[in-house]
């Protein structure tokens, strides 16, 4: 029975399900479900929110009996406050079936091409533009000296079906999201000059490639390292970063451009290692990379795990993901870093920025405002649904973590967010990434040399919008799990 603002322990409602599962989950763990009801599930959601939701004091306590569906009830168990810029304070409140969550979490390599698209519109008129390809994948294979997919090219058709305005979504989905390796599909692509070409690409098992490129750029004032780093997620991120930093340290770079423009985040632990490798032990020793701030009722305890709330240090050794636990990490010992950013620079990427600023390492931001996600959660299953609700805010060694409107280059006209030294520069998909003509890298090198910025530009003047604007229609979705196509609910899809 519901009594306003009186909460039983969430544990007293846990795993009491309207439809109990039997057997074991994908990890081999027995389901804990017991016979219960939808109402009990809703009471669990209510108490779990009260105990762990970061903004629990901003949730209106509503009678679960008034909601027929557990997901409808969950959807209103959040704050509806807005940030200073008017965005929702909580944009990260969602759930998905637990079997889909686990399948995505423990997925083996999946069929694909190894290409990342910028999704300007997922409904007709659709617009997908190639951001980058991963080395060694079908997308990067060259025919006649040209890769199958080239940055800046837009998809015009797939297997003869009109991609932009067509209705044959089955054919488009089959081609864009191959079910198996070894499938050949035909794409018509158009570059920024309107030149079209047809490529036939065979799918393969691909995994995300964290470090896409590492370069050393010689300048008149020393060598500058460049790392194009796209995800903190797979275990290989650890050794790929170590290899990259080792290479740059060997080449004695005196500055670093860290390209996080498409990096939507991942593991805080690897973000900590990256920050350490940039700064070295001088500013980081004994300091906190990130502390998790839970709701004010939790005290010194992590209310999700019940354990002591242990901060993340600047890890100075491998953690065992793909570098042996305890193995010393290489360092660049830099007092500043240039970060290339867009609105897709998110979450754990922002943690690197915030963590370094917390120990007075200068972060110079070149590009666009970052996504503004200082929050995280512990995905939690109950009765077959895995719930994501904001449970902590990451704060740095100075206790700062209020950047819900993002980190913003100093000369940006955007009046909100946290201003950092640097330049507002639009990403240009028609320019090769990480090369001299890349406007973000070029601006970083100019700022380093001269301390000046080019006139601010935004994506609106760089990207040609499809004629007639965007209209609603049937969106393309990846088979099985729409969330596979979105690394973040606020971000365009990132398909690989």
């Amino acid at each position, binding site marked *: 029975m519901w009594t306003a603002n009186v909460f039983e322990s969430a544990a007293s409602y846990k795993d009491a399900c309207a439809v109990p599962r039997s057997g074991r989950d994908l990890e081999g763990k027995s389901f804990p479900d017991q016979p219960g009801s939808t109402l009990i599930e809703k009471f669990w959601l209510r108490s779990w929110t009260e105990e762990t939701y970061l903004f629990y004091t901003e949730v209106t306590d509503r009678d679960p009996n008034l909601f027929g569906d557990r997901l409808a009830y969950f959807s209103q168990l959040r704050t509806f406050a807005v940030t200073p810029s008017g965005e929702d304070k909580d944009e990260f409140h969602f759930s998905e079936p637990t079997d889909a969550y686990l399948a*995505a979490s423990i997925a083996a390599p999946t069929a694909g091409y190894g290409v990342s698209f910028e999704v300007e519109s997922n409904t007709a008129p659709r617009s997908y533009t190639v951001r980058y390809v991963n080395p060694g994948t079908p997308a990067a294979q060259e025919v006649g000296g040209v890769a199958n997919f080239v940055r800046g090219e837009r998809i015009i058709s797939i297997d003869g079906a009109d991609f932009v305005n067509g209705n044959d979504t089955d054919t488009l989905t089959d081609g864009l999201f191959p079910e198996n390796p070894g499938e050949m599909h035909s794409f018509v692509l158009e570059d920024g000059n309107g030149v079209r070409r047809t490529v036939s690409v065979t799918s393969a098992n691909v995994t995300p490639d964290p470090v896409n490129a590492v370069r050393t750029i010689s300048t008149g004032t020393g060598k500058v390292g460049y790392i194009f780093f796209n995800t903190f997620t797979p275990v290989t991120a650890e050794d790929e970063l170590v290899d990259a930093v080792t290479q740059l340290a060997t080449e004695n770079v005196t500055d670093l451009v860290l390209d996080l423009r498409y990096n939507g985040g991942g593991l805080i*632990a690897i973000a900590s290692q990256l920050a350490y490798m940039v700064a070295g032990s001088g500013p980081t020793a004994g300091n906190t990379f990130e502390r998790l701030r839970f709701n004010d009722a939790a005290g010194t305890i992590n209310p999700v795990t019940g354990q002591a709330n242990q901060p993340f240090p600047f890890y100075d050794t491998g953690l*065992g*993901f793909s570098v042996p636990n305890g193995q010393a990490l290489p360092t660049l010992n830099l007092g500043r870093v240039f970060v290339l950013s867009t609105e897709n620079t998110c979450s754990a990427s922002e943690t690197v920025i915030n963590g370094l600023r917390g120990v007075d390492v200068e972060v110079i931001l070149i590009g666009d405002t970052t996504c503004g996600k200082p*929050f*995280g959660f512990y995905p939690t299953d109950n009765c077959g649904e895995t719930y994501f609700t904001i449970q902590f805010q990451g704060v740095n060694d100075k206790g700062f973590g209020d950047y819900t409107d993002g980190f913003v280059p100093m000369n940006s006209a955007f009046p909100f967010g946290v201003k950092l030294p640097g330049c507002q520069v639009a990403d240009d998909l028609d320019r090769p990434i990480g090369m001299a003509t890349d406007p973000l890298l070029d601006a970083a090198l100019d700022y380093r040399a001269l301390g000046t910025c080019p006139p601010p530009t935004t994506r609106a003047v760089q990207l040609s919008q499809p004629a007639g604007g965007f209209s609603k229609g049937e969106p393309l979705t990846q088979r099985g799990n729409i969330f596979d196509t979105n690394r973040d609910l606020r971000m365009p899809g990132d398909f690989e």
Partner: protein
Amino acid sequence: MIAQALIGAALLLSVSGCLSASSSTPAVIIDQDALSEVAAAVGEAIGRPRFDVGLPMPTEVPELVVLPRGLSPLETRSPARPRVFDITLDDGACVLNERDATMRVVVSDRLCRPI
């Protein structure tokens, strides 16, 4: 794997902390088959019957690194960290003590050897 987990559960002799530390000797897992059994026991103890073992290899170094589950695409700021168990031979039993934590898993001494 499930069968391994059940075997491992049978090998899970104790989670008590009453064994003497005075005769504790660093140890490694004897081989890959033994590692499967040890991993099953640890998995059962931590509630994750299937997990990936991290580096270094516990057949060479006296520690077992339990990697966290992979992330779903929506987990962009995950606090997941590996868990490290130090491996010792302790009064005739092979013991895995979680570093900086209290979990203790005991398996048959035939699965470990001193280094």
